[in-house]
């Protein structure tokens, strides 16, 4: 799944969140989107997920086209694209009444994957994030780092083509944050695109990955092996 932004602008009322942003992300890339708070990082991720539409320009995510203006994207395209994208939210967005296993299984239920196939996938991803022993725990019983790993497991359950991570280390201590990013790096090496919005400069500077820097809604730098302050 390739992602392309063509002169994308986004306005929320009078506020301009993005201003003629253009970039491409090919399948298998690891990309950091950096910048200060309010720069537009989350807005870029929201557009990729089809959560909001561009006010100007056009965004293409795989087969989903998000045009600006009156033309609306087809609901089915958005749904199909989202099923290929795994998302790690900063605030986790886990369902409190469901166990770890049930939360991780939700995307599989959506895809009507049942029975042993479902169980095997859940077991596989929980092993990957080292949470198999806690599959019957509820979110309230887990630490911040564990919750984020559950999110990652949920994102991985559908074997996504792209993982979007919005400030995944924001609520974690440095050590746990590192472990999470290393996990994402490992997953990326398997061919999954990873796009991570962050303002954790330690991680960005150490990872030597592509860095797109956004300031006041504009891309100010796009380096292949970038640093936080390009």
């Amino acid at each position: 799944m390739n992602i392309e932004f063509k002169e994308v602008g986004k306005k929320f009322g009078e506020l301009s969140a993005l201003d003629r942003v253009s970039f491409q992300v090919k399948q298998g890339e690891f990309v950091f989107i950096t910048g200060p708070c309010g720069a537009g990082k989350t807005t870029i991720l929201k557009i990729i997920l089809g959560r909001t539409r561009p006010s100007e320009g056009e965004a293409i995510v795989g087969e989903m086209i998000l045009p600006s203006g009156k033309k609306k994207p087809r609901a089915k395209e958005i749904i199909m694209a989202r099923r290929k994208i795994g998302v790690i939210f900063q605030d986790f967005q886990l369902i409190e009444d469901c166990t770890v296993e049930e939360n991780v299984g939700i995307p599989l239920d959506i895809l009507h994957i049942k029975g042993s196939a479902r169980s095997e996938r859940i077991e596989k991803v929980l092993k990957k994030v080292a949470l198999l022993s806690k599959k019957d725990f509820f979110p309230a019983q887990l630490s911040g780092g564990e919750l984020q790993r559950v999110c990652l497991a949920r994102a991985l359950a559908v074997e996504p083509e792209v993982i979007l991570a919005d400030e995944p280390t924001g609520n974690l201590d440095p050590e746990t944050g590192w472990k999470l990013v290393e996990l994402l790096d490992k997953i990326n090496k398997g061919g999954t695109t990873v796009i991570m919005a962050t303002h954790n400069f330690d991680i960005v500077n150490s990872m030597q990955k592509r860095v797109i820097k956004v300031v006041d809604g504009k891309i100010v730098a796009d380096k292949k092996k970038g640093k936080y302050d390009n």
Partner: protein
Amino acid sequence: MVVNFLMVSLFVFLLLGFSLVLSYFESRPEATAFLKDGVSQAIINNTISELKGYSGVREVKFVSKEDALKIYQQENKDDPLLLEMVTAEILPASIELSADNPLILQDVAQKMKDRKDIFDDVIFQKDVLDSLAKWTNLVRNIGLSIIVFLTIVSAFVISMIIGMKITLRKGEIETLRLLGASNFYIQWPFLMEGMFYGIFGAILGWGVSFGAVAYFRPKITSFFGDIPFWPTTITPFLILLVLELTAGLLIGLLASGVAVKRYFRR
């Protein structure tokens, strides 16, 4: 919802009963003509022969004063107070007439009314039938109005409850949407819940009213005597149950559908 279907069941049972009583009387058109005191037996016999000669008249029966006393004593045997001071002399003799259909009976009854020298009074079953039909219509109209009102209220309540539940779970719904769930996947549990409320209300409402009917049946049957007030088989009750289940399902589905559409349109 339970109250709604309870009222539906009770009114349907009542209407069923009234219809059965109406049918009973319609299938046995009867008139009773009370004879004046002093009319001779010869005149009575001539009158009976004349009445039997009319086409469509099924049976003509003479009830003498003594016969009338026996009938009165039998009907009031449990109430000795009513038996005191009552003799055959007080009670009038009568001629009971039955015909094949109410129209024939109406004609014959009118002819008897015209014979004021022989008959004191003619009670024509049509009056009873008209009264019964009037009451049946009244029960039907009142019942229908109450049922329509309760159905609207029930549907509104279900819609509000489902709407509140959707609002309480809006975070979860948003998460499901972002994970690629279709609208149908998200909406279906709420629609199912609405249908459940409808079906549960129908079963409970029917169950309670059927229980009440079963409990009061012996008393009501003894009140009506030979006149059937209840169906002899359970089939009509089961048909009503099936209809109520279907109605409950549809009302629940519609009500929850309205709540779901309202939320997802935002």
